[in-house]
């Protein structure tokens, strides 16, 4: 009994409180930029029953297959009934940076809150403000097809003790400003490590092997290493990496289109060129 009680307590959500939400005047342009850098759209696309909805809107519902079952990522448009319209800033930040729903349930880490946790909270609030400007779409949330979902979610609470690092991203003063910008975009919003860093036996990212590549999360093929991209002759230089991310196959970069990377590349291509170059500079430095 005591053991169960301890498990129950350890697996409980540990949300942020109002004191963690800084006073902030939202910057919509920054919000849009980080919305694209974060790739929100790619998973929250409208589901097959939303045929008349603008396919660019993150109305949610498109099935997302994961090893534990199929999820239907929720509606990020500001619809008050079925979207984020009635969410508070605190609820939004808890969802994005702690993986906790407004009802206090754990989100499964296919939602990359484990990377978003490293973001500046102001940036998360800017994304929230940007999302509020989108056209509202009615798209009711659909429960995940996951056996024993309740137990799974509670189990994630335990997993978060090892799998969720709540430390914010820190700049490296020895590096250039643009390198640091790239590092922030890659490690925070870009959540590149979620696929490009292999996981350990506990399914937490193995940071000693950061960006060394690994099995594809959908189980088919392999995710390439991002280390030594120049040394291994994959790309000529930092600018070449940036071009690949900016133009993808439009310029014949054929390595950035498989396994979901095509979607990632399209999201990144929407960033200002300076940000894409910064990402290139940072990635080129990974040895």
């Amino acid at each position, binding site marked *: 009994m005591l053991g169960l009680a301890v498990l129950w307590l350890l697996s409980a959500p540990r949300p942020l409180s109002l004191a963690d939400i800084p006073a902030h005047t939202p910057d919509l342009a920054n919000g849009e930029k980080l919305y694209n850098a974060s790739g929100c759209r790619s998973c929250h696309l409208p589901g097959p029953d939303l045929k008349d909805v603008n396919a660019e809107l993150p109305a949610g519902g498109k099935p997302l297959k994961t090893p534990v079952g199929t999820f239907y990522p929720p509606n990020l448009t500001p619809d008050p009934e079925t979207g984020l319209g009635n969410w508070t800033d605190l609820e939004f930040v808890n969802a994005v940076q702690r993986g906790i729903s407004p009802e206090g349930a754990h989100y499964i880490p296919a939602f990359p809150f484990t990377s978003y946790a490293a973001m500046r909270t102001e940036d998360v609030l800017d994304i929230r403000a940007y999302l509020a400007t989108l056209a509202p779409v009615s798209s009711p949330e659909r429960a995940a097809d996951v056996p024993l979902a309740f137990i799974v979610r509670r189990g994630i609470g335990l997993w978060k003790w090892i799998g969720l690092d709540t430390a914010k991203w820190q700049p490296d003063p020895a590096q250039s400003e643009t390198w640091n910008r790239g590092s922030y975009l890659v490690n925070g919003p870009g959540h590149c490590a979620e696929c490009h860093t292999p996981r350990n036996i506990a399914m937490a990212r193995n940071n000693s092997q950061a960006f060394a590549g690994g099995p*594809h999360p959908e189980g088919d093929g392999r995710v390439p290493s991002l280390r030594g991209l120049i040394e291994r002759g994959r790309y000529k230089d930092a600018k070449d990496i940036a071009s690949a991310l900016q*133009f993808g196959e*439009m*310029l*014949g970069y054929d390595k950035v*289109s*498989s396994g979901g*990377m*095509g979607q990632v590349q399209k999201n990144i291509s929407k960033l200002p060129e300076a940000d894409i170059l910064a990402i290139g500079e940072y990635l080129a430095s990974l040895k």
Partner: protein
Amino acid sequence: MILGNAIWKIVAAGTLVLGIGAGAALAETAEEAIKARQACMKANGAMMGVMVPIIKGEKPYDKAAIDAAIAAEGTACAGWANWWGEDTKPGGAVETWAKEEIWTDKAGFEAAGMAYGKASEGVKASTDEASFKAAFPALGESCGGCHEKFRRPKG
């Protein structure tokens, strides 16, 4: 009874030998098909290697080189439609980065191929630097259109 048993064994062994023979023949064909696909993609990459530096402005526009690259790719890829037998699926004896979806979504795979063909015609029809540069992005995108859905990620 003993004789009967012996005959049965001979028949069984014979069938086995024939079976292996047939299997080997099939594997050879599948191997050839997969190798041909890969050679076609290599030629395709070589064609890109001619075109992309021109698009990026690293090399001057060269219509003869572009036409030659398109022709070489066309030769290497001529048998394309015949290289997708059931025995060339992933998981067979020869490693392939083709995805199952090629066989489960045949219409989608064909549409992606048609998009490439159309874009390729567009580039072929270009007559000067401006029309080439205008036609190229569609060609590149059509590569991505197929790779995204039908090619497994490679480490």
